[in-house]
């Protein structure tokens, strides 16, 4: 049992030990959670990304996300009504800091990014703004498979230009394919 645990620890630590560069692509899905927005509800989200890590501590990625908000509801005179929550497309880039290499094992990092955020919904003007986000990520790259299982959290702020902002929390789980260590 001790040998097995030691083997697991050794395997998970490999990512820390092998500090090499990496290129990967991935797909992810999760939840798009509006924060302090009564006119939107939680919806789903999907996305694609490509990551380049020229150093084991710093990397960058570009991404595209297709998200939806759930329909908000109000009750007027005892009747419940709703409007379209709308759909968001977001594409952007982010800086990754932490353990961002592609070696087997666990990788924990922070992401700081900027994106073009476009929210379309029936009855409203399109809301196209620049968004900013920050959040942690964790990826477990499986030994000898070039596959990584990743979980991420993002907190996003999209200034509205009137002194206010739209805020969203995003939670993703995804799979990455690592092309190899350069």
């Amino acid at each position, binding site marked *: 049992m001790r040998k097995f645990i030691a083997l697991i620890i050794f395997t998970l630590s490999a990512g820390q030990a092998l500090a090499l560069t990496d290129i990967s692509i991935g797909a992810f899905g999760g939840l798009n959670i509006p*924060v*302090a*927005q*009564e*006119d*939107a509800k939680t919806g789903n989200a999907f996305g694609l990304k490509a990551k380049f890590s020229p150093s084991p501590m710093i990397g960058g990625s570009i991404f595209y996300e297709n998200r939806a908000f759930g329909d*908000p509801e*109000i*009750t*007027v*005179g005892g009747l419940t*009504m*709703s*409007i*379209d929550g709308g759909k968001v497309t977001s594409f952007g880039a982010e800086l990754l*800091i932490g353990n961002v290499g592609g070696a087997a094992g666990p990788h924990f990092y*922070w992401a*700081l990014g900027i994106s073009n955020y476009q929210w379309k919904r*029936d*009855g*409203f003007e399109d809301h196209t703004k620049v968004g900013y986000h*920050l959040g942690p990520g964790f990826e477990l790259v499986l030994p000898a498979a070039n596959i990584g299982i990743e979980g991420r959290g993002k*907190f996003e*702020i999209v200034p*509205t230009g*009137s*002194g*206010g*902002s*739209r*805020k969203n929390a995003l939670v993703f789980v995804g799979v990455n394919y690592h092309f190899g260590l350069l």
Partner: protein
Amino acid sequence: MKKYMIYGMALLVLIFIAGCVASGTLILVYDIDSFISSSTSIQVTEVDLTDNSDYNDHKDKIKSIDQVAVVGTLENLEFADNQAEVWLSDVGTYSSPAEVRANATIVFSSPVILAGDTLFIDWSDALSYIQNLQTLKDAADNGHFYLYGLAENSPFSVRFQISLVITMTAGL
């Protein structure tokens, strides 16, 4: 170096959290008492959003009025099809349809209501019947205005049972 990186991250997190709690988007429902307006006796209703506790709590911290909709039930009490209209003004003393049309701004025009029929305007439908949205937004931002009930054709007699649904971004 690692310590400074952690401090930097912590600072960024604080900035993001501060931004998070600084503002939010709220939905207010302002109910207007039912009234009947006719071509011979037009009805005006005063809207004072400070009567709404949510509005009152945030009136000094409004960042933007994002959307305003008119929802509710409209009843055509005449014997001819007609379209109900809501006109907005900061003056509450107009007494004829002509005076309202000359001085106020139309902000809502319903689809055709059959003679003697009732039409319900849902929130999702309501957005497409709004006119001069910016005027309506500005009035909501100001918090006090008057709404006149009219119809496209005269003679008319319409019962308005409506509410304003206001979406706004405000400091919390």
